[in-house]
């Protein structure tokens, strides 16, 4: 596991985004697995991006993307590490998730964070893993699909 620059990782990340989306995406009928690359590059330029990569024989097999930034509703709490997304190709997962999250915590500490926030999908529930890694389940997150007739 290592910290990597956005420009170095994104060429290979583009390929993994499709596998990531297939396995974990929700609202797939409304979304496409293509990120705003310029925005991520700008976030890195501003010092707000946290990118970890998982490589096997030099090839990208996973990543953890997050942000390190102030929490506006806790003005004096220092920077927080926030999770954007993470993914590891299935055939490389044995134990890799543990290393990836330990690295996330370590890098967050190095960057002055006292708190790190993460999440998982309902349909791929990592609650037991995250709690055993020391996280506390504090929130539930919901998405409104505002174009759906059922969304009132």
């Amino acid at each position, binding site marked *: 596991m290592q910290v990597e620059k956005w420009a170095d990782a994104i060429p290979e990340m583009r390929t993994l985004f499709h596998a990531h989306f297939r396995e974990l995406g929700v609202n797939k009928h409304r979304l496409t697995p293509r990120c705003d690359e310029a925005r991520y590059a700008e976030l890195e330029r501003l010092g707000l991006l946290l990118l970890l990569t998982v490589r096997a024989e030099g090839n990208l097999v996973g990543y953890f993307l997050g942000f390190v930034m102030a929490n506006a509703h806790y003005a004096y709490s220092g920077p927080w590490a926030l999770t954007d997304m993470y993914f590891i190709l299935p055939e490389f*997962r*044995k*134990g*890799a*998730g*543990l290393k990836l*999250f*330990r690295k996330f*915590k*370590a890098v967050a500490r190095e960057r002055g964070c006292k708190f790190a926030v993460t999440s998982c999908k309902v349909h791929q529930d990592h609650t*037991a*893993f995250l709690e*055993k*890694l*020391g996280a506390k389940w504090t929130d539930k997150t919901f998405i409104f699909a505002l174009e759906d007739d059922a969304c009132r």
Partner: protein
Amino acid sequence: METHTADFVLEFIRAEAGNQEIVRETPLDSLGLDSLELLDLLLACEVRFRGKISDEMQDRIYTAGDLADAFA
């Protein structure tokens, strides 16, 4: 933390991992355990030997011997 020999702890690791062929040099990565199972192994050691291993220490544990030494 309770004090035991590293061999005693290693025997416990073998039992928890269900693998009697584990030796000190066995990489934890080679046990075929997923992340949750690896954490369960670590937590089982913490409970059994009443110790706590920090994240920083965990990052330096690569083999069964390293894990046994951490609780010995």
